[in-house]
């Protein structure tokens, strides 16, 4: 009897009314605010920019693109967070760690980021639930180590609801294309793209190849190539064929 009662009470608590109350409370949902990426045509596609206080999902196109996906996610978090804190919740076991001097080189002050490491996916999800409910956090990055089967439609719906109430922007950085339903507001596939060469054929500023695979209340949009301008803290459109792109802009404007 003694060994049965704690699991019983624990189960009761786990399945208890806590989440239902949290969801059913008629808390005021903050009006939807957006942050622009700095690329007018992409922002127009996104109805004025990425939505704050929502869940966004990203994944790399190939395993080699994982650093690019992480970089793009961090830059989105930087733009979404404003002056508030950024929390990076990582599941233990990812290969290669986030390198703080590299963050500083991207224009993200490492001192602003609170690093949390969760031992497994369940703990990751619970910690993410805590963080996303805190109004002190501007943006949160959830970084599972593997395919993350627990981060399904229900979990993403919960995260979205929490984010709407607290105003925290949640960004889920997956390791691969999930092929699973998700309540995320936007879903992006990120890949690295060749940078504009500097003098002496040196690699230039980071360039991301983006595909907006899905967005709520909007059409998908493919084939974006954005360069991150660290000094102005914004993205700039870049095309492999720069002259043709400029001509297209000119035609559209004329």
């Amino acid at each position, binding site marked *: 009897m003694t060994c049965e009662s704690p699991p019983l009470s624990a189960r009761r608590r786990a399945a208890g009314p806590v989440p239902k109350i949290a969801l059913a409370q008629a808390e005021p949902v903050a009006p939807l605010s957006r942050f622009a990426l700095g690329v007018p045509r992409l922002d127009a596609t996104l109805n004025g920019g990425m939505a704050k206080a929502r869940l966004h999902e990203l994944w790399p196109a190939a395993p080699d693109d994982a650093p690019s996906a992480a970089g793009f996610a961090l830059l989105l978090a930087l733009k979404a967070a404003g002056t508030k804190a950024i929390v990076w919740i990582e599941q233990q076991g990812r290969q290669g760690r986030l*390198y*703080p*001097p*590299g963050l500083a080189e991207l224009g993200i002050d490492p001192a602003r980021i609170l690093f*949390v*490491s969760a031992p497994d996916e369940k703990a990751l999800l619970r910690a993410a639930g805590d963080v996303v409910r*805190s109004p002190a956090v501007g943006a949160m990055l959830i970084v599972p180590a593997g395919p993350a089967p627990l981060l399904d439609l229900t979990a993403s719906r919960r995260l979205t609801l929490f984010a709407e109430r607290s105003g925290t922007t949640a960004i889920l950085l997956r390791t691969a294309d999930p092929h699973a339903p998700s309540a995320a507001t936007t879903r992006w596939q990120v890949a690295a793209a060749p940078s504009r060469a500097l003098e002496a054929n040196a690699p230039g500023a980071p360039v991301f190849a983006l595909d907006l695979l899905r967005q709520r209340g909007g059409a998908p949009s493919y084939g974006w190539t954005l360069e991150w301008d660290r000094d102005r803290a914004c993205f700039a459109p870049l095309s492999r064929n720069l002259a043709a792109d400029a001509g297209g802009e000119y035609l559209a404007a004329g």
Partner: protein
Amino acid sequence: MLAENIWRLANPILPGTGRGTAAEGGGGGGGPQVTRPDRLPLHRSSSGPPPRSGEDAIVFVEKLNNAMRLTALSRAAMALGLTPDLTLADARARVPDLVALDRDHGAEARLLARIVTGCGRYTPMAAAEPPDGVILDITGCGHAFGGAAGLKADLAARLEASGVTAVCALGDTPEQARALARFGHRGKDLLALPVDALEADPAVTLALRRAGLKKIGDLASRPRKMLAARFGDLAIRLGRLLGEQDRHISPERPRTPIFALRRFAEPIGRIEDALACLEELGHEAAQALLERHEGGRRFAARFFRSDGAIAGIEVGTGQPTRDPALLIRLFRERVDALSDPIDPGFGFDMIRLDVGQCEPLAARQDDHIAPSRHEEDLAELIDRLSVRLGARRIHRVQPENTHIPECAASPCAPSKAPAWDSPPEDEPPARPLRLFDPPQPVGAVMSEVPDGPPMRFTWRGRAYTVARWEGPERIAAEWWRRRNRGGRPRDYYRVEDADGHRFWLFRHGLHAEDGPQPDWYLHGQFA
């Protein structure tokens, strides 16, 4: 009123040295006297006069204005003609065999605190007069020792037995006792004390001396209004010294630990009920904390089972708090996170909550117009996460002063705000976003020239062709830190392949004409 003035100049054991010289060995009567550090030179030069007490000339030195100066001397050192404020070099020139030790103010303060605690045997009203005095209010306390004089003699004997050289004096007010102890030279005449006994500003004392007012007696006959007009608070000091005004001392009271407990006539068997009870205890503890204007940093709950087993859980917070709701939330997190859940067995018959560590926390009114609680919210979030995941899993990063890339950052407490330099403008990122530690070996590196950049490499079984590159950035090993010269230098290249993946590769070591070629490693990936 009794002032006990520990003579720091004459007391060789007072300043602790951290070398086992029994800085605190005196203690409760009959304790060990000063023990000599064995390693120090104790032989005496024949030229100097032998010290009177037969002790060594020990001086304590401090760095003042960039010079090592003597600040405390043993009797023997004083007998050799050394004085405070002398530089150590001058003192060594005069007395080559001088034993000079670093002064330890922390140990002195601890010894003083012990003496104050010990004086509790005479009166509850005992207070420290930093840096080297103790003041006791012995009003109505003397009868047990045969009057105030008997008390003084008892105290002096006890202090001497424990190796503390002290001067005791009795006075009507704390200032009077203090002045007699420090400036009285065993005399009892207040009016004969020098004006220094007022312990006013040095400029004021100098002005009084220049005006020909050298003794307290010279001042006592003057009209106070004139003194107040010319020297400010000197009149108050004089009044207190002469016993015309009194001041109360603030005695050191032992701080009672804060706890709350509940006993049950019938043991309670459900954890939920126990936690509900803990919440009530939290309210009680919060009330006690509020009365003391304090908040707790560490809380321990103990559940006493009726069969004698005790289960304890502890939570800590990053900032002092007395919010019972927050407290119970942390305890619930802790209970949920236990791998071995608390077993109520046949029930708990007592629950006790202790506040282990308190810090000042003033009452505060919220700003109703613009409630900005972001920092507190963040601290609360950090507490919750550290209770659930463990404090080591939540951190910030701080820069380290090293060139070695894998050592350039280290985790620090989340409450810290480390300062990072921003990178130079108009430059592409020079450091990768992801770092592999240890670096991953890459194979089949082809270069155009032996010590040139890589043109082609394979990593994880895939071949990459380098389209753009920059380098090398040579990072040498820190030969000044390691005995074996730290290892080989690394030549770092930023490279980008045809698809746009950016890598940070390095060649480990220098190219040699004959012999094995240096290995290549992948140390990181850029965004």
